[in-house]
C-alpha cells in the first residue's frame, strides 16, 4: 500500500478551521454542514427547539433533512442530504451499547426519509470533535474525501482520485493515511461505501473502527435503504474523522455517578447471565438461527416456509467454529455485550479478491437468514463469502437476500429465464449464481445491475418487459414502501405483520418484533392488545435512535428481576436504566412515560414527512400476501393441518371436501380482513385518522404541532 502516492494525488478543495468545542450535558450545541457541490463548510447552532422536540441522532437527522428537501426532491437531487449523528447519551463508555451513529437520507428505494443505525466509532468521535451531527449536501464533480481532525480543529475537502472504492481496502488506506502513527489508528473512523453502491439502489455505508488486537479495521454497516447509493451519487469516497483522547467523562454529564452505577449493574448482569441466555459474547446475533428454524420463523425459499432440514448446516454452532477471535469484541468502548464477531483469514473463492485471506465481519443473524436460508443456500462458506462481498461492495445484505430470494422464485416459476438473467441459473440453493450476480452488481453489468434496483423495480420490469403476471409478483415480492423485508417470517403472526407493515421506513424489524408475544406466548390476543404493542414498542425502540444507543443491551440480556415483573416483554428494569442514563447525562428529569412521548414526537414527524413526500398513507401500509399467508398450493399444503383448523375455528368455513384453491381463497379473505382491522386499531391507538394521518389534536397533545408540520397535515385531513 503506497499511501504517500495516494496522498500526493489529493487536491485540496477547501480547508476550514474551527474552535474546538466543549460538550455540555451530552450536547456540543453545534452541528457541521458540508456541501460537496460548492465546497462550503460551516457550523450551525443546535437550537433549544431541536433538543426539546428532536433530542438528537435520528431526530436531528430527520429535522435537517426535512428542511433540506422539498416534496419534489428525489434521492439523487443535489439538495438531498445524508445526516449522521449520535445523540445526547452517545459516546458514554460506562453503559453497553452507547456508540451508535444514526444516518438519515432520502432513499433511492423508497423515495422517503430513511434512517439506519450503525456501530463503529464515527458518531461518538464526531461529537468529541465538536459536532452533534454532520450534514452532507450537494454533489461533487470528482471523488472527494472529507477529513475532520477533531484535535486540531481542521476540516478539509480533498479530491481523491486514486484510493480504492471497496470498503475493506479503502478503510485500511485511509486509516493508515490519516493516523499519525500506529497508536493513533484507534482514533480514526472512516465512513465509506463500495463499488456496487455506484450502480445498485441498495447501497450501504460502512463505518470503521480499528481493531487494536488484529491491527486491522473492522466494518459495521448502516445497511438499510440505499444511503450508500446516495453517498456515491454525491461522489463522496469517504468521510474520515480523527479524535485522540476518548475518555469516560467527555459528555460532561450532569450526574456521572448515576451513569456509572447504572452501567455497573448491567455489566454484572451480562457477566452473570449472557452465557446461559443469548451467548452474545460468544456467538453474536447468529445465536438465533436455529431458534428461528425451530419456531418455524426462519425465512426459507423466499418466505415460503419457516424451517428447513438443512438449517443445521448454517447453525450458530457451525459459525461459532469459524469465528476465530478468542475474546469478545464491542463496536464501541465499554460494550461488554460484545456481539461484534468476525471470521479471520477467510479465503475467498470468487470475485476480484479471489485467493486473498480477509476478515469477514459477521455473520449476523440477518446475513445467515437472508443470504442463506431465504435463498435456499445452506453452505456456510458461501454465506460468509456473500457476507464479505456485500459489505465491501456496500450492499445491504437484507435487501440483497430478500431480492435474490424473490428473483430465484421468479426463475423457478419460469417468469424469467436464462436469457433474461444472462445465463445465471438462479435456482434456490445456487450459491455460485448468487455470488456472480453480486459481482455483476459491483461491476455494473448484466442481470446483477438490474437486480440492484430492488424488488419493487424488478416487479415492474418483469411485468412490463417480460410479461410476468403482476398479481403473482405483488404477492411474492417481499417489499413494502420499496424496502425489502428483513429476515423473519411474519405469516403466522398478525401482530408482526403490523410490526412490518405499519412502520415509517418500511418492513424492518427494528420498530417492533412481536412474533413470540403474539404467536407463541399469546399475550396480545385482541386487536386492542396488538395495537397497544404496536404503539409501545415502536415508540420505545425509536428512542434508541434519538440517543445514539444500541437496542441489543435492552433485551438481549435479561435481569433477574424480570420474572417478577408484570410486563416482562418490556424489561422494565432496563427501561428504568435508560431513564436514569438520559437524566444522568442531560440533567433533565424525565420518567418512562415522557421517554415514550419524546419518541412519539419524532415518530409522528417522520410519518408526516412521508406524507409530505407523497407517501405515508394507509395505502402505503399494505403488505404483500406472502407476508400474511400461503400464496401457493405448496405453501398451503406444508401447513395444511394448521390452516384447515383455522378455517374451521376462526373463519367458520368447513374445509371438508373443498379444493386447496377454495380453502386458500377463504383463508386469504380472512387474513386480509384481519390486517385491515389491525390497521384500524393501530391507527386509533396512535392518534391517526383511518387514512393514517396524525390528527392535529394528537400532535398538540404530544407537543409536535410545529407550524410546518401542521401545514402538511391540514391538507390531508
Amino acid at each position, binding site marked *: 500500500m503506497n499511501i504517500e502516492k495516494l496522498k500526493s494525488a489529493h487536491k485540496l478543495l477547501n480547508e476550514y478551521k474551527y474552535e474546538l468545542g466543549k460538550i455540555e450535558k451530552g450536547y456540543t450545541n453545534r452541528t457541521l454542514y458540508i456541501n460537496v457541490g460548492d465546497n462550503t463548510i460551516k457550523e450551525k447552532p443546535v437550537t433549544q427547539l431541536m433538543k426539546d422536540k428532536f433530542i438528537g441522532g435520528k431526530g436531528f437527522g430527520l429535522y435537517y433533512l426535512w428542511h433540506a428537501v422539498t416534496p419534489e426532491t428525489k434521492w439523487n437531487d443535489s439538495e438531498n442530504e445524508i445526516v449522521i449523528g449520535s445523540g445526547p447519551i452517545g459516546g458514554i463508555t460506562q453503559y453497553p451499547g452507547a456508540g451508535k451513529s444514526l444516518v438519515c437520507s432520502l432513499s433511492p428505494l423508497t423515495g422517503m426519509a430513511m434512517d439506519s443505525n450503525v456501530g463503529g466509532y464515527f458518531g461518538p468521535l464526531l461529537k468529541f470533535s465538536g459536532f452533534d451531527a454532520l450534514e452532507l449536501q450537494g454533489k461533487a464533480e470528482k471523488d472527494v474525501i472529507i477529513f475532520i481532525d477533531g484535535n486540531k480543529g481542521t476540516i478539509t475537502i480533498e479530491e481523491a482520485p486514486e484510493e480504492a472504492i471497496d470498503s475493506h481496502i479503502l478503510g485500511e488506506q485511509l486509516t493508515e493515511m490519516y493516523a499519525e502513527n500506529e497508536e493513533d489508528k484507534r482514533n480514526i473512523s472512516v465512513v465509506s461505501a463500495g463499488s456496487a453502491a455506484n450502480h445498485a439502489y441498495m447501497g450501504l455505508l460502512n463505518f470503521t473502527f480499528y481493531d487494536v488486537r488484529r491491527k486491522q479495521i473492522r466494518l459495521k454497516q448502516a445497511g438499510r435503504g440505499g444511503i450508500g447509493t446516495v453517498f456515491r451519487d454525491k461522489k463522496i469516497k469517504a468521510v474520515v474523522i480523527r479524535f485522540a483522547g476518548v475518555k469516560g467523562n467527555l459528555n460532561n454529564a450532569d450526574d456521572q455517578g448515576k451513569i456509572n452505577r447504572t452501567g455497573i449493574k448491567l455489566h454484572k448482569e451480562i457477566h452473570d447471565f449472557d452465557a446461559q441466555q443469548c451467548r452474545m459474547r460468544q456467538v453474536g446475533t447468529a445465536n438465533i438461527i436455529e431458534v428461528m428454524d*425451530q419456531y418455524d420463523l426462519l425465512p426459507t425459499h423466499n418466505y415460503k416456509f419457516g424451517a428447513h432440514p438443512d438449517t443445521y448446516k448454517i447453525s450458530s454452532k457451525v459459525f461459532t467454529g469459524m469465528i476465530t477471535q478468542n475474546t469478545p469484541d464491542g463496536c464501541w468502548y465499554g460494550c461488554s455485550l460484545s456481539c461484534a464477531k468476525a471470521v479471520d483469514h477467510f479465503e475467498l473463492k470468487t470475485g476480484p479478491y479471489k485467493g486473498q485471506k480477509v476478515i469477514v465481519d459477521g455473520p449476523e443473524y440477518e446475513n445467515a437468514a437472508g443470504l442463506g436460508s431465504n435463498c435456499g443456500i445452506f453452505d456456510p462458506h458461501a454465506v460468509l463469502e456473500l457476507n464479505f462481498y456485500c459489505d465491501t461492495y456496500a450492499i445491504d445484505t437484507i435487501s440483497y437476500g430478500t431480492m435474490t430470494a424473490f428473483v430465484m422464485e421468479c426463475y423457478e416459476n419460469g417468469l424469467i429465464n436464462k436469457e433474461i438473467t444472462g445465463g445465471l441459473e438462479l435456482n434456490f440453493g445456487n450459491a455460485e449464481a448468487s455470488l456472480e450476480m453480486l459481482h455483476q452488481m459491483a461491476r455494473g453489468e448484466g442481470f446483477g445491475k438490474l437486480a440492484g434496483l430492488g424488488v419493487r423495480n424488478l416487479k415492474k420490469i418483469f411485468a412490463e418487459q417480460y410479461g410476468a403476471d403482476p398479481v403473482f409478483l405483488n404477492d411474492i415480492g417481499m417489499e413494502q414502501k420499496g424496502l425489502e423485508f428483513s429476515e423473519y417470517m411474519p405469516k403466522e403472526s398478525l401482530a408482526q405483520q403490523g410490526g412490518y407493515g405499519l412502520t415509517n421506513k418500511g418492513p424492518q*424489524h427494528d420498530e417492533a418484533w412481536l412474533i413470540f408475544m403474539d404467536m407463541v*406466548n399469546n399475550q396480545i390476543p385482541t386487536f386492542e392488545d396488538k395495537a397497544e404493542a404496536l404503539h409501545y414498542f415502536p415508540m420505545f425502540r425509536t428512542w434508541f435512535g434519538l440517543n445514539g444507543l444500541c437496542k441489543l443491551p435492552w433485551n438481549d440480556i435479561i435481569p433477574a428481576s424480570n420474572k417478577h415483573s408484570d410486563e*416482562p416483554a418490556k424489561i422494565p428494569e432496563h427501561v428504568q436504566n435508560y431513564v436514569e442514563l438520559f437524566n444522568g447525562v442531560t440533567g433533565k428529569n424525565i420518567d418512562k412515560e415522557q421517554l415514550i412521548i419524546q419518541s412519539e414526537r419524532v415518530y409522528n414527524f417522520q410519518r408526516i414527512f412521508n406524507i409530505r413526500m407523497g407517501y405515508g398513507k394507509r395505502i402505503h401500509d399494505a403488505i404483500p400476501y406472502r407476508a400474511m399467508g400461503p400464496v401457493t398450493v405448496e405453501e398451503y399444503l406444508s401447513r395444511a393441518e394448521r390452516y384447515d383448523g383455522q378455517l374451521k375455528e376462526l373463519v367458520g368455513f368447513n374445509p371438508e371436501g373443498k379444493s386447496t384453491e377454495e380453502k386458500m381463497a377463504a383463508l386469504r379473505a380472512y387474513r386480509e380482513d384481519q390486517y385491515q382491522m389491525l390497521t384500524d386499531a393501530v391507527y386509533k391507538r396512535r392518534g391517526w385518522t383511518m387514512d393514517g394521518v396524525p390528527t392535529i389534536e394528537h400532535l398538540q397533545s404530544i407537543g409536535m404541532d410545529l407550524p410546518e408540520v401542521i401545514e402538511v397535515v391540514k391538507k390531508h385531513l
Partner: protein
Amino acid sequence: MIKLNNRACEWEEGLTVQGLLDKKRYTYPKLIIKINNVLVPQDEYTSTVIRDGDDVKVIHLLAGG
C-alpha cells in the same frame, strides 16, 4: 387437558415442565414459566410435574430481533 398460554393443550400423566418444552419444541433459552401463577425455577423443570387442568404459562422473552 391443560391450558398453555391460554390455549387448550394435550396433557398426559406424568408430564413434566421439561417434557412439555420438549413436546412443543420450546428450545428458546430465555423463558419464564409459571404454573397456576407460581414461578417454576429453571433447575426444577425436570422435576416439576404438571397436573391435569393446570394453567401453564411459558413466556418467551423476545420482543426484538
